[in-house]
């Protein structure tokens, strides 16, 4: 049930620069739109409502050679896009159809959100994460290169020792395929290559490493099976879900093997899930089929900024999670001292109790899946970077429930913050935007 929030007066003050004060009618439309879209399926092909059909068609035909927009009619949401959102849609498609995409401009347009109906979210995210270069002409060659790179990585890193020894055998000249067809007789014993055998305890032994990795693989497997159990995409017995789980597993295992410093930490699966979901549901069939490879690289890119949160040794350092949480605290103090004082001093709700999960998992556990995608639009597009934007959004989350927090004690507040109520996401992001320390460009 969507909570319809009235914007507090201080946010409506003329001191704030950009967008016009949101009118209730638009809020209402957003609220119902997200209520409908809250089924955790990719935008289901809904019969296009008459109101929705004409404007999007016009938008798509406008930019010549628009990449992926053509086949999206059936992805129209139940409600037609509002005026502002429609304008954004047009701008987005226009920007994407340019020969060289201006990424700064793209960030500006995408920041308030990418309308689901356009089906360009995968492409925009790939551009924002630097996977696709701004020059559209380079896309085909880049994609081919990256995807084959992934395939090679997988075949080199994700094989088990039997396969490795088989390859080693093929490369060394002992080629006893013919002698194997002896009908009768003592079987010939041959030397083992490189001293490799399954029970080897040598540190450099591939077998030994394999068994040591087995623990991580088990952990990854368990977490993948637990990812979004309510969504058919991720969970269940269908072949589709199983293939998606396999992809997630492969990506996480490959990442763990290629990054021995950080390996796999619980929670990485949650950050991976929205990325893979978006790319797998790309309206372009070719892109959707190559989602695993694309997701891997984007995941690496996304995680590179967040690695420090996952590294336990860095917890107490300047870049670690504790200091990030402290920054959130500071931000709250700056913008809403009363709330800050009540939360941290009076009711002693240590931000670590709720903000840890908010920050390390990029809010994937706090909202519905569609809302998460929406929030991630902003997280990825904001020029200040995901970490800074995240802090502002967390601060906004606190401010939006301030009345309940101010009235609550330790238990009530903790309960509220650990089970954050669903709210209007656009409004949340609007408030978060207002909390910028310097005016946005």
């Amino acid at each position, binding site marked *: 049930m969507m909570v319809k929030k009235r914007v507090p007066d201080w946010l409506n003050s003329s001191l704030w620069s950009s967008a016009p004060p949101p009118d209730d009618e638009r809020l209402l439309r957003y609220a119902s739109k997200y209520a409908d879209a809250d089924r955790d399926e990719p935008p289901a092909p809904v019969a296009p409502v008459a109101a929705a059909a004409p404007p999007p068609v016009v938008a798509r035909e406008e930019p010549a050679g628009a990449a992926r927009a053509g086949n999206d009619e059936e992805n129209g949401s139940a409600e037609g896009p509002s005026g502002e959102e429609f304008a954004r849609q047009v701008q987005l498609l226009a920007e994407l159809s340019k020969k060289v995409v201006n990424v700064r401009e793209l960030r500006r347009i995408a920041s308030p959100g990418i309308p689901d109906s356009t089906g360009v979210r995968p492409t925009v995210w790939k551009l924002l994460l630097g996977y696709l270069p701004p020059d559209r002409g380079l896309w085909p060659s880049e994609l081919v290169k990256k995807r084959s790179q992934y395939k090679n990585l997988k075949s080199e890193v994700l094989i088990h020792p039997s396969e490795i020894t088989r390859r080693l055998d093929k490369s060394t000249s002992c080629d006893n395929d013919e002698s194997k067809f002896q009908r009768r007789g003592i079987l010939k014993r041959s030397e*083992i290559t490189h001293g490799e055998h*399954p029970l080897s305890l040598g540190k450099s032994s591939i077998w030994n490493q394999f068994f040591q990795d087995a623990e991580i693989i088990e952990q990854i497997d368990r977490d993948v099976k637990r990812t979004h159990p309510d969504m058919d995409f991720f969970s269940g017995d269908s072949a589709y879900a199983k293939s998606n789980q396999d992809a997630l597993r492969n990506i996480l295992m490959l990442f763990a093997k290629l990054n021995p410093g950080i390996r796999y930490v619980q929670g990485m699966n949650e950050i991976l899930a929205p990325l893979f979901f978006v790319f797998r549901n790309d309206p372009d069939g070719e892109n959707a089929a190559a989602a695993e490879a694309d997701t891997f690289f984007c995941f690496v890119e996304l995680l590179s900024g967040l690695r420090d949160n996952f590294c336990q040794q860095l917890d107490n350092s300047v870049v670690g999670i504790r200091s990030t949480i402290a920054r959130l605290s500071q931000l709250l103090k700056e913008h809403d001292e009363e709330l800050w004082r009540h939360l941290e001093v009076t009711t002693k709700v240590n931000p670590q109790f709720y903000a840890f999960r908010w920050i390390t998992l990029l809010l994937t556990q706090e909202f519905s899946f569609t809302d998460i995608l929406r929030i991630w639009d902003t997280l990825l597009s904001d020029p200040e970077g995901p970490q800074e934007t995240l802090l502002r959004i967390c601060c906004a989350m606190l401010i939006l429930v301030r009345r309940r927090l101010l009235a609550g004690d330790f238990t009530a507040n903790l309960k509220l913050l650990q089970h954050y109520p669903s709210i209007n996401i656009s409004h949340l992001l609007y408030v978060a935007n207002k909390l910028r320390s310097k005016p946005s460009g």
Partner: protein
Amino acid sequence: MVLVLALGDLHIPHRAPDLPAKFKSMLVPGKIQHIICTGNLCIKEVHDYLKTLCPDLHITRGEYDEETRYPETKTLTIGQFKLGLCHGHQVIPWGDLDSLAMLQRQLDVDILVTGHTHQFTAYKHEGGVVINPGSATGAYSSITYDVNPSFVLMDIDGLRVVVYVYELIDGEVKVDKIDFKKTTTTTAH
């Protein structure tokens, strides 16, 4: 990739006190999926030890085993291969490959694992492959005192088996391997 440990003829405690230390250090739990044991453990403690290495344990009865309820022969399917297990003292002449081939045809298995002679052999004939893992403790046999401790680890990967032979020669562990594959798949039971 399934790892199957084949060993037997330990004769603990009558002819040997324990597995060689170097073997024991290599045999750690968590790596092996199945253990097949030709027999002559002889006591329950050895059974319990093998159980800690791997819960899936198959044993056939040797003539000195104190547990009388082990079967005389056993067959199991692992991956694409059918394996047969028998101690071998029942097959005479002991160690005779033709007689063992007869047993193999009777059990209808691709790989027959037997012991009793305390000598490692791996032999191929039209019906399949016969493997004798030898004695894991190097216990003397009814035939000879000159026995090197040995056991076998099979890596079953699809239609291909890599047999790793572990022998303790002059105090050092020597590992060899034997590669073979089968040409037809097993029909599903």
